[in-house]
């Protein structure tokens, strides 16, 4: 089984006891994430949706490449690969804001 490192963003470190990266075994991104989820209860639900796809505001990178540009969760891993869970950081103005500000 391939051993990889998974980097955990600050907002999700509550699930890993404050650790910023963990080791996981898996031949694909999906397998490594499943191992991550088995070791850290509640974390996987923040990363993957009910159908097992990456959530809207989550990007998954292997090295410098988004898995969406590779083979998605089926992207194959090599020993030493680093998977980064990258929160999509987004926002902006909308009509709600004008109302909220009174």
């Amino acid at each position: 089984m391939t051993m990889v490192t998974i980097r955990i963003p600050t907002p999700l470190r509550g699930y890993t006891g404050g650790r910023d990266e963990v080791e996981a075994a898996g031949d694909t991104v999906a397998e490594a994430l499943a191992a991550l989820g088995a070791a850290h209860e509640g974390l996987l639900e923040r990363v993957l949706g009910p159908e097992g796809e990456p959530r809207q505001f989550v990007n998954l990178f292997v090295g410098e490449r988004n898995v969406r540009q590779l083979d998605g969760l089926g992207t194959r891993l090599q020993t030493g690969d680093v998977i980064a869970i990258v929160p999509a950081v987004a926002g902006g103005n909308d009509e709600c804001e004008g109302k909220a500000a009174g």
Partner: protein
Amino acid sequence: MNLCSRCGSNVYSEENATVSRILRIPDVLRARLKAWACTSYPHEACGLLIGRSVGACNAVVDVRQARNLRTERAHDRYEIDPQDFLAADRDARHRHLELVGVWHTHPDHPARPSSTDLAAAWPQWSYVILAVGQAGVSEMTSWRLADTAFEQEEIQS
């Protein structure tokens, strides 16, 4: 409560706002954010805050500007380029620091979080908003996600 006129969601709460959460950011870094905000106007500017999170305090040590992927709506939307996120995260790790927050601007709008901000918010991070117009930055606020709404936090130097 401040409800969205369209969806009815509670965007942020002033009534229940707590001052126990603090964002500490040195004046020199505030000045850098304001300069970026003015340079980018009338487009939104955005970036990341690097520092330390200690208890209820997020202490900013450095700031980064990031590329806004929402070029088609740069006047009222932002999405930080994930490559810039990875670079800032890598830099923080090398310095034994972490990403403690996000900053962005609201051109010609108040420094209050929108429902768009809320939908994409993550816990623990400080969300700094700068209201910027032709005359410059008029207000800078900071917010944290508390359950399902934002709460304003105090900004200290």
